[in-house]
């Protein structure tokens, strides 16, 4: 079809959909939730990566990577998740397993390291990530955690994130379980009581009774929320939090942006959970609903409409007890828009009609980006994600033009192919996608961990548009094509 570009691998064909109109052949959305094809050069990471990025922003905990050096080295200070206080999360701790540890086991080494780090840094909790080879050599990480917890009286939580045991999403789940286990230390576990495991909870030294709370109906009536899946990249979490606080809504806990162990343990106090970045946190929201009866709403903080909806949704939720919230919410949105829209109008003409390819980690991000781009008058001609679910792709299909390429678990060659075929002007992705765009001489916007300017919230809409504008209107795209 295209000269010099190899065909899409046979084993991957069902994960690429060129026309969502082709429902007759069962090809309306890409197949998904499959392991990557060997040798396909997937952009995905691993289970460990999923756990690490979700728990990473918890700044007063130490994160020990139990494994050989690579896993810790590659994730050292990897996310721009800001903290207003301690910055323990920006350090890289590893048991640095070597040959003998692998032969004889490394439980003792883990214990020694953790003991030393706890006494040096006085963290509020410890997360211990089990990487690939721990799953093979059979270290009993859970046992080491229990021992450490008894010795030091702080939560020491194993995160089972052996890389080969699935994809990034499975890592999100492992991280959610770790967060849940933190909360259960304060609130007990409905589930475990049901299963008759409550006696063990009482032995938990980090679960002293003065700290243990029970969901109180009074606190639930006060408008209070948790922000799940908000990681405070570039301070975005603070921005979002400020909107809700302006309305008088208490943000009990941000999970896990600018995270503190005590705040996370307090999370079940909240009356409502807002879940952004569905891939990582819906599991936790469901569990919290199950355990402590906290309802949840799925939201996005990207784009004017979505941001406004996320604010109105909360006001609506508390309407019975606090009817004044809706008016305040409207006033807030009006105020924000009055400064945003005129600025946006100035740069929109340069963006209108431009063709964009989106390739991001989660499907949720993909479709929330499609919506914003539409607001800017831009066309999404390629939309894909590493780990989107069936629901995500259904949603993409619903909101994209019918000849938009939808792709699951793509790779650089495929992206290069779509960019050429669709004459894309700009790619939105992360660091791994950047060189595909740049080598092909088109614009790029990083919507991933490394962003340093907030792209969420109302001001984020402008920042995002401006970043697109800066890249798309650059004279370098002309120069890069000029012959000598």
């Amino acid at each position, binding site marked *: 079809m295209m000269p*010099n*570009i*190899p065909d899409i*691998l046979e*084993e991957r064909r069902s994960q690429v959909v060129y026309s969502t109109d082709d429902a007759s052949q069962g090809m309306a959305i890409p197949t998904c939730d499959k*392991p990557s*094809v*060997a*040798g*396909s*050069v*997937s*952009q*995905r*990471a*691993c*289970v460990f*990566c999923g756990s690490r990025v979700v728990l990473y922003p918890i700044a007063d905990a130490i994160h020990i990577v139990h*494994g050989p*050096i*690579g*896993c*810790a*080295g*590659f*994730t*050292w200070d990897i996310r721009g998740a800001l903290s207003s206080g301690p910055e323990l999360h*920006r*350090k*890289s701790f*590893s*048991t640095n397993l*070597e*040959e003998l540890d692998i032969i004889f086991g490394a439980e003792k*080494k883990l214990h*020694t*390291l953790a003991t030393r780090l706890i006494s040096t840094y006085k963290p509020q909790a410890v997360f211990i990530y089990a990487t*690939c*080879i721990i*799953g*093979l050599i059979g270290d009993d990480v859970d046992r080491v955690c229990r021992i450490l917890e008894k010795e030091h009286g702080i939560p020491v939580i194993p995160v089972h994130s052996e*890389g*080969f*045991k699935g994809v990034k999403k499975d890592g999100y789940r492992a991280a959610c379980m770790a967060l849940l286990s933190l909360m259960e230390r304060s609130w007990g576990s409905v589930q475990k009581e049901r299963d008759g495991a409550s006696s063990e909870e009482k032995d938990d030294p980090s679960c002293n009774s003065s700290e243990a709370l029970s969901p109180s109906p009074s606190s639930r009536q006060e408008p209070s929320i948790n922000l799940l899946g908000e990681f405070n990249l570039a301070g975005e979490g603070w921005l979002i939090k400020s909107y809700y606080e302006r309305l008088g809504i208490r943000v009990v806990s941000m999970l896990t942006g600018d995270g503190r162990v005590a705040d996370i343990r307090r999370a079940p106090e909240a009356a409502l959970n807002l879940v952004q970045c569905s891939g990582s946190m819906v599991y936790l929201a469901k569990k919290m609903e199950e355990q402590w009866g906290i309802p949840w709403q799925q939201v996005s903080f990207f784009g004017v409409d979505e941001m406004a909806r996320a604010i109105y949704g909360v006001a609506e939720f508390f309407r019975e007890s606090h009817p004044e919230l809706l008016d305040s919410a409207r006033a807030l949105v009006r105020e924000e828009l009055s400064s945003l829209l005129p600025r946006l109008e100035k740069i929109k003409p340069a963006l209108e009609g431009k063709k964009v390819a989106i390739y991001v980690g989660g499907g949720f991000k993909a479709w929330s980006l499609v919506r914003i781009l539409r607001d800017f008058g831009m066309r999404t001609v390629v939309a894909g994600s590493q780990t989107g679910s069936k629901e995500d792709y259904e949603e993409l299909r619903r909101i994209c033009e019918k000849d938009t390429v939808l792709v699951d678990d793509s*790779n*650089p*060659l495929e992206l*290069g*192919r779509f*960019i*050429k075929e669709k004459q894309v002007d700009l790619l939105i992705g992360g*660091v*791994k996608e*950047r060189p*595909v765009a740049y*080598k*092909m*001489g088109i614009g790029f916007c990083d919507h991933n961990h490394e962003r340093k300017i907030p792209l969420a919230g109302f001001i984020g809409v402008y920042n995002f548009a401006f970043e697109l504008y800066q890249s798309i209107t650059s004279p370098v795209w002309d120069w*890069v*094509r000029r012959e000598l």
Partner: protein
Amino acid sequence: MGNHTYKGVLNFEFKKPTGASPGFSLKEEEVPEKSSGGVENPCHLCAPLGAVVFFAGFEGGITILHGSQGCSTYVRRYLISHFREPVDVASSNFIEASTIFGGKDNVQRAIGNVIRQYTPKVIGIATTCLVETMGEDIYGIVKEMEARYPEVLLIPVSTPGFLYNHREGFQLAQSALLRVLATRGNTDIGPHHKTDTDAAGIPFGNNVDPLREPLKGAKVPSVLLFPNFASPADLRWYKRVGEFFDISLKVVGDYSQTLDSGPWLIYRGLASGGTAQETIATLFRADAVIGIGSLPLKEPSPAEILQRYTHIPAVNLPVPIGLGYTDLFMKHLSSLSGHPIPSVVREERARLQDAYVDAHKYVATLPCAVVGDEDLVLSLASFLLEIGARPVFCASGGKTGYLRDGMLRLQAQWGDRWPQNFEPVILSGTDFQHVEELIKRLGVRLILGSSKAYTMARTLGIPLVRCGFPIHDRFGASQILHVGYEGTYNLLRLVVNALIEQEQETNPVGYTYY
């Protein structure tokens, strides 16, 4: 050429001393609790990363990491942040079942799919911690695949991250290439047979001519160079130097273009350039081989392997940074080629000598720390000594002994020119947490190291001159020239200007002349 009689590889640096030479002392920090208790902020990365960089240096070269998907993605992301170039790395995509039933199928599918997508000419298949722990026989698995893909050179290499760091993995891949070539039938190295088995258990194989004599007379020799973990600018310098001596100098694993290329406009996955097929086919016909910064690993260095197979002159030289080590490099090329050192090179050298004089007061007795790969640290320390600074602290995540032994030799060479009462602290196999403690204790005022030293440098308020790998927080890492007289001048400029800038910024007067 004439009189060279090479009995073995001339190991410039890593001949193990039998103990500290009398009259000299190096402080070697012993850190027992570190070795048993893990790492805080690592100074090193894992071996597969080095293999990926090496295989990227071949025309149509790509790597498959045999293990779970995360390893290849992490390595890619890390390298992309440094080189700002595409680095496509495949994975055999281990899943849970593979760890139980073995990953042979995965490797075979990965090789097939990589060939279908990239039409590569060289595929490195490097192992990860996971499959090494399982004990996968990567050599056996790949052997079976050779017949199916005769047009592709498949190079298996064992690179367990729990044994080797990124610098060592890079060298292991260099050696693996030679081993594969020596055991494959189609390498152009003559009709002799030899069936010795070496330490790694790989037969020496067919087609090796153990009796080959070095070329004699005026014939222009071809020289192979196995580089250190160098920047693309460094590799370009190595290649250019060959021209000065009118010899064919080939960098084996030449990523100077593949990891530093121009616009593509169509995404092909692999950049053009890299060590050519013809070069690979004639590696064993080279007249001489030079290894740069080769470390003393269990597996012989590439220069040693070639020497054992073909008896050509082989030498392992330190990274040519500073006058002394660059002189050594130039003299060696001059002697190999039979040409005198040309005037263009002498002019560069003279400019550097002059710069040493101009710069000496800015740096005299300045306590410096150097952190990085062992070979790079040694050469940077040598350079700092030459300009009158004091590399009071030399640290590396590596621990092969190269750095320690090199420093001892350096001290011996300097003899009574060695600064009085100067006892550098050498720290091998360390992490940044410990480096930071020592930098504070030793009163260091300038750090030479990678971007990973920034957090520490910021905490301590000490200027950092970025060099080596990785450079994640500055633009243009590929263009940093470290080697040769020009590279040394470049480093000198960075060092002196870092000091001036700090002085100027903090000085209440705000002087405008320095």
